[in-house]
């Protein structure tokens, strides 16, 4: 597993987020063991105001497996300070016949061996039609000027 002190911050986030999801889908390993590879036992994760601990993360493995949710991530920027990382990224998730685009602003802290022990994230669902329209408008305005 990548660690914060030896890996480019952007690559660290891509590797971390991608491999967690892939390991869930690829292996039949016990959900608790997979979660323990990526999160410290006393993980405190606050996502959009919802506090999640180890048991919540383990319970969430089941729907990922059942729904065969796949995802890819684009990390736009990431900065590291000691065991802390701040990152802005976009998740592209395919699940239950839907394609979701989710912007994430994340602050986290990681153990020396690369497991998250504290995380805070705010997410925004991107309305792809509206955003494409907005970017199209911007391009049109640029062309007109």
């Amino acid at each position: 597993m990548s660690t914060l002190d030896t890996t480019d911050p952007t690559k660290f986030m891509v590797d971390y987020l991608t491999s967690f999801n892939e390991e869930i889908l690829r292996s039949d390993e016990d959900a608790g063991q997979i979660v323990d590879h990526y999160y410290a036992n006393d993980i405190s994760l606050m996502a959009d105001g919802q506090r999640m601990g180890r048991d919540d993360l383990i319970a969430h493995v089941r729907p990922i497996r059942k729904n065969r949710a796949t995802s890819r991530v684009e990390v736009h920027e990431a900065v590291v300070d000691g065991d802390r990382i701040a990152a802005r990224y976009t998740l592209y998730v395919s699940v239950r016949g839907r394609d979701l685009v989710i912007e994430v602003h994340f602050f986290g802290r990681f153990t020396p061996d690369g497991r998250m022990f504290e995380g805070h994230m705010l997410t925004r669902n991107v309305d792809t039609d509206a955003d494409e329209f907005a970017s199209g408008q911007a391009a049109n305005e640029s062309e007109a000027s």
Partner: protein
Amino acid sequence: MIEHRYGVAGMTCGHCASFVTEEIERIEGVTAVNVDLTNDKVIVTSDRELALADVRAAVDEAGYELTGQEH
């Protein structure tokens, strides 16, 4: 109208809530579904008694686990 509360494990966000909601809404007689993410609860309003097995099957279809019904 009848209201029942169920425990559902594994829901972490609004997308999870919508997946569970849309499957439970397919059960005949269901008129409203509200998800309480903080407490891992789903509140189902219906115009008739619902079979627990039907609710469990709907939650399972969405990918989640029904942990119980409050009485």
